């Protein structure tokens, strides 16, 4: 069958189940029900502190076919997923579904577990290019991986679409009764937002910490009433790996050019004014947009309502400069952001659900004015791919891409028009992550394209000397430089299912030939 974007997808996918096709970004709202939670109540006097992960596995009754979950706030410094999976593998347990909020190169041991049938399913909302992404692309995983968004995952958990048997929470600091915070300990990572839904809805919750604090481990991010057990290990992670790869403004002249143009678009369309709410990623060009917006805000004396998202020191500086009143933080990208979250009450955590769940009573993304997004590819309908690269290899997942694009009043993609000598604008993207109906503007170094759905923006930009072009013109310019690449050939095997934030299937990833 074809979904609303015309993507060919099966009605049923082995290892995934019946497919609910994507019907449109705003087609799936209304009355919702949350799943009920099964828990074992704790009597006064019971102890939660366990000596080893093995003991925790005994207590939670780990067995074949279970779903275990992890969070990625320690990013490429995370040891907990590997520690737990090694203990599970040692027991000869098979058919585990790993529901991790993010997977990084450090999680390479998963590849061997995939080959051995210990891990047969993966659900993830962020994945770095690396060995696990390659293994999925090669079709080594028994069941297709499920790529979700940051808001889509808590939606799936809350609705019961994704049931977590055991959540293992890497806990920078915890007390013996299960209060957890992300700001203490050797591997302080800041907010623990992505694992909040797991802590509430999982059958069992295990805090894994290397820093056992005296009771209570304030300021608490996850409270004791959600936690079954606490395990102390030598180390939950390498603080050096917590810092995201790129957290500095780019010095690349092309990136700066794009950023300047992007800021001019934001200004020309009237969004830089008091109460502005703004989110950008941690990439060098995205931060350069923030730098340009900051200049304009300062010049105009504008005070924004909030900055949001994965937070870098740069956004913290804007808060401290009085350019935003608040920050909503779903993950800290560097240690400056961690410190700010710890010390500044105006720097608020938001759970993944509060951030982007389309089926709660209103996510923060709904209050966003401006969102700066990246893209691997964008097509003539403004559909964006951030999942697969030019050779069909999985190199990312939505993260908050389609959540923020849907919510923001101005969702702007900033990208070089060519990447690695390949054009970014395509007739059709290889994989749709974010539907074009939620993308408003594309900004490149050679021009700006406005989604024809946004005639209001187009009219405003026409009054400026900004280089507004059609997306078809931008495609022509890029292909003139690079030529038109040969289409990638795929087998019929589906290696990943890309869920839109509402749980419908927006696309599938097939194994490249």
């Amino acid at each position, binding site marked *: 069958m074809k979904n609303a974007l015309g993507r060919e997808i099966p009605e049923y996918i082995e290892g995934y189940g019946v497919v609910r096709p994507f019907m449109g970004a705003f087609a799936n709202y209304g009355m919702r029900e949350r799943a009920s939670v099964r828990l074992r109540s704790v009597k006064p006097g019971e102890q939660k502190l366990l000596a080893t992960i093995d003991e925790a596995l005994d207590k939670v009754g780990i067995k074949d076919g279970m779903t275990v979950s992890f969070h990625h706030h320690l990013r490429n410094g995370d040891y907990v997923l590997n520690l737990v999976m090694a203990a599970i593998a040692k027991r000869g347990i098979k058919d585990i579904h790993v529901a991790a909020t993010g997977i990084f190169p450090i999680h390479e041991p998963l590849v061997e577990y995939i080959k051995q049938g210990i891990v047969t399913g993966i659900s993830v909302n962020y994945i770095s290019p690396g060995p696990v992404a390659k293994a999925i692309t090669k079709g080594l995983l028994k069941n297709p991986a499920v790529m979700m968004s940051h808001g889509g995952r808590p939606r799936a958990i809350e609705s019961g679409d994704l049931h977590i048997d055991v959540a293992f929470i890497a806990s920078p600091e915890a007390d013996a009764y299960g209060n957890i915070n992300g700001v203490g300990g050797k591997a302080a990572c800041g907010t623990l937002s992505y694992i909040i839904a797991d802590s509430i809805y999982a059958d069992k919750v295990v805090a894994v910490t290397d820093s056992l604090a005296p009771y209570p481990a304030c300021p608490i991010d996850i409270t004791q009433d959600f936690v079954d057990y606490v395990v102390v290990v030598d180390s939950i992670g390498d603080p050096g790996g917590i810092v995201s790869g790129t957290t500095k403004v780019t*010095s690349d002249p*092309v990136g*700066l050019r794009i950023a300047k143009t992007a800021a001019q678009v934001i200004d020309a369309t009237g969004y830089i004014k008091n109460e502005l709410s703004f989110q950008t990623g941690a990439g060098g060009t995205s931060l350069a947009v923030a730098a340009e917006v900051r200049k304009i805000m300062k010049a105009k004396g504008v005070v924004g309502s909030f900055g949001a998202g994965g937070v870098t020191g740069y956004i913290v500086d804007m808060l401290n400069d009085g350019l935003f009143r608040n920050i909503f933080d779903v993950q800290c990208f560097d240690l400056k952001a961690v410190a700010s979250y710890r010390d500044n009450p105006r720097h608020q955590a938001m759970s993944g659900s509060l951030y982007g769940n389309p089926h709660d009573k209103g996510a923060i993304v709904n209050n966003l004015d401006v969102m700066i997004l990246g893209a691997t590819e964008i097509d003539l309908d403004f559909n964006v791919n951030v999942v697969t690269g030019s050779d069909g290899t999985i190199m990312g997942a939505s993260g908050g891409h389609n959540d923020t694009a849907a919510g923001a009043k101005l969702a702007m993609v900033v990208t070089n028009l060519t990447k690695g000598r390949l054009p970014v604008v395509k007739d059709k993207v290889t994989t749709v992550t974010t539907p074009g109906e939620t993308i408003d503007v594309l900004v490149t*170094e050679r021009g700006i394209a406005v989604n024809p759905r946004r005639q209001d923006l187009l009219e405003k930009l026409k009054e400026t000397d900004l280089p507004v072009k059609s997306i078809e013109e931008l495609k022509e310019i890029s292909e*003139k430089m690079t030529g038109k690449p040969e289409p990638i050939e795929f087998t019929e095997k589906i290696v990943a299912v890309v869920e839109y934030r509402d749980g419908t299937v927006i696309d599938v990833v097939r194994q490249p030939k």
Partner: protein
Amino acid sequence: MKQYRKSILFVSGNNPKMLQDAPIFGSDGVVFDLEQAVAVEEKDSARLLVKEALRFLDYSGVDVIIRINALDSGYGEQDIELIARERPFAVMIPKASPEQITKIESKLAKIELEEGFPAESIKLIPVIETAYALQYVHKIITSSPRITGVFFNAEGLTADFGMQRTKKGEEIIYARSRIVVACRAEKLNAIDTPFLDSNDYEGLEKDCYRARNMGFTGKAAIDGRQIKIIHDIFD
């Protein structure tokens, strides 16, 4: 094509990405460098790369200038032979002298005839970077009607003099003054030497003010990030 006046951006002729991105920064002119930025073993490939870039990429909004190698280097003639047939806006002549300009003129005239280009359509920009060129700057700039302006290369000049180059530029005050007087007298563009610390925006600003107040019409850039400041000050 527009008349470069305020800015020219230097781009290494052997860097495909820079050749591709050169026109996006809004400079009046882009200079594809086949001389200083290109090592001897890459002269041939850079020349071919620039030729292909001129054929296939869109430089319609900017003056394309090619800094060729000096004729006595053994590479200059080949540069002209290959590149002039793509009809750049101008050829930039290193270590300029009236004699070299005369030779280049006649080669360009021949190519223009063979290719059917209008006579004298390819312009010349001599580089003043030697004591000789500085001494005879007026003679140089009046040696051909093709000459539209001058590029002052302070790094070359100070090397020729054995002087130490500084950000403040007191060592080049005389050279700047002499070049500007000659250019202003002949109503030609005078493009000042680039500011080499591309991360020092404040230093660039000061250097631009100095050059502008001495009479230069514009300034060369070595990084796209410098263009806006140059334009703001030379506007």
